[in-house]
């Protein structure tokens, strides 16, 4: 016992160092998992407040661009307004609530912190638990998908961008309907990769890639990007497809958080399947 204490005393500096490193490792692993939210994150009160005031300044500078984007979106929405359409048929349809059950609701949010130059990128949004945001909700913008909510505090939420090592999104080629998965290769915030598309499928540069209906996180048909380059001469059974992303992640300002009202039902059903 005495020797043990002597040993501990002699190497106290090294042992203290090891303890701190183990603590860091614990924090890193905790931060990686979705289920247990970490307490060292940018949704915490102090850092979120600083980020919020900084983004207030940059947001003012970028007001012109934001206005233009919103005006564009308004124009798009206006063209969907029922009054714009001339009703060509005399037949009248009755919309009934029992038929049209609303599946998705959208929460608007402001981006108060954002990065694109790391291997794993995150955003912080100005909406939190109080506004109905929960973990694993999707985040989109008018141009395409943005990411998935990872941590939530009372007023803020932290989002894993699709520019992240672990992001993997079920995607569909709009024209042919084939399903693959979209991942980010790293380094270039304007490009991603579409994987798991078999070689016999014809893919042309310029084809549109959208989200599939498989995930319970994103609605179907949200834009991801367009095909940039196709390489069929690979060693495996699949093609290498590089995708131009439709969203400029460096200049995100306003986004929508997607709430899927039937998510729990879908997840439950799919989990039952695994048990059998």
């Amino acid at each position, binding site marked *: 016992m005495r020797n043990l204490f002597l040993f501990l005393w002699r190497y106290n*500096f090294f042992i*203290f160092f090891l303890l701190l490193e183990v603590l*860091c*490792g614990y924090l*890193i692993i905790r931060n990686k998992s979705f289920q247990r939210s970490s307490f060292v*994150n940018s949704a915490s009160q102090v850092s979120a407040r600083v980020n919020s005031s900084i983004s207030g300044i940059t947001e003012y500078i970028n007001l012109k661009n934001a206005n233009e984007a919103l005006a564009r979106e308004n124009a798009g929405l206006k063209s969907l307004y029922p009054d714009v359409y001339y009703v060509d048929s005399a037949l009248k349809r009755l919309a009934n609530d029992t038929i049209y059950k609303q599946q998705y609701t959208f929460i608007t949010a402001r981006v108060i912190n954002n*990065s694109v130059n790391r291997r794993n990128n995150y955003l912080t949004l100005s909406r939190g638990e109080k506004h109905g945001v929960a973990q694993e909700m999707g985040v989109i913008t008018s141009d395409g998908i943005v990411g998935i909510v990872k941590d939530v505090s009372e007023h803020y939420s932290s989002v894993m961008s699709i520019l992240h*090592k672990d992001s993997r999104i079920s995607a569909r080629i709009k024209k042919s309907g084939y399903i693959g998965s979209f991942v980010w290769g790293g380094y270039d915030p304007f490009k991603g990769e579409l994987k798991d598309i078999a070689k016999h499928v014809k893919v042309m540069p310029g084809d549109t890639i959208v989200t599939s209906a498989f995930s319970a996180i994103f609605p179907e048909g949200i834009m991801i990007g367009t095909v940039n380059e196709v390489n069929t001469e690979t060693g495996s059974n699949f093609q290498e497809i590089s995708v131009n992303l439709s969203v400029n992640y460096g200049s995100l300002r306003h986004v929508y958080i997607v709430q899927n009202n039937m998510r729990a039902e879908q997840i439950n059903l799919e989990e039952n399947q695994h048990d059998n």
Partner: protein
Amino acid sequence: MIIKIAQLFFRFLFLVALQVLVLNHIQWSGYINPYVYAFFILMLPIETPKWLLLIIAFILGLVIDMFSDTGGMHAAATVLIAWARPGVLRLIAPRDGYEPETKLSPQVLGFRWFLTYTSMLILLHHLVLFYVEVFRFSEFFSTFFKAVLNAGITVLLIILGQYLFGRGNRHERFIG
């Protein structure tokens, strides 16, 4: 003593603010993100006790982590260089050792000494940080390149900062 502590505290705030408000937002080619804040650990007075070094490094790392959503990656890298600092100082000590209360700056100990000192520790910091961030062997060489490139830029920024703001102590070399 009190003045010295206040000085260090302000330097801490300045470096954290510089890192979080300016350097974390550089979005140029996706490769460049220097982490200059680690300079705070290198600059601490030479007589700082080892255990205090580790604690300060841990707090500094956690503050940076809090602002950049990285769990404990910055804390891990910063604690590692705080642990390595006494060894590196001993390794590259001048012939007659350090005098008490030596200021660790290029004006006092010479440019070559300062360059070796900062590049060794900053390179170690960046390598650990980038490898922990990627945590995957398949990107070994691209990560290595990124770490070395950013370490170079960080060292350059530190040296520029030293010659621009490290004021007043030029004559000490001739006296001491």
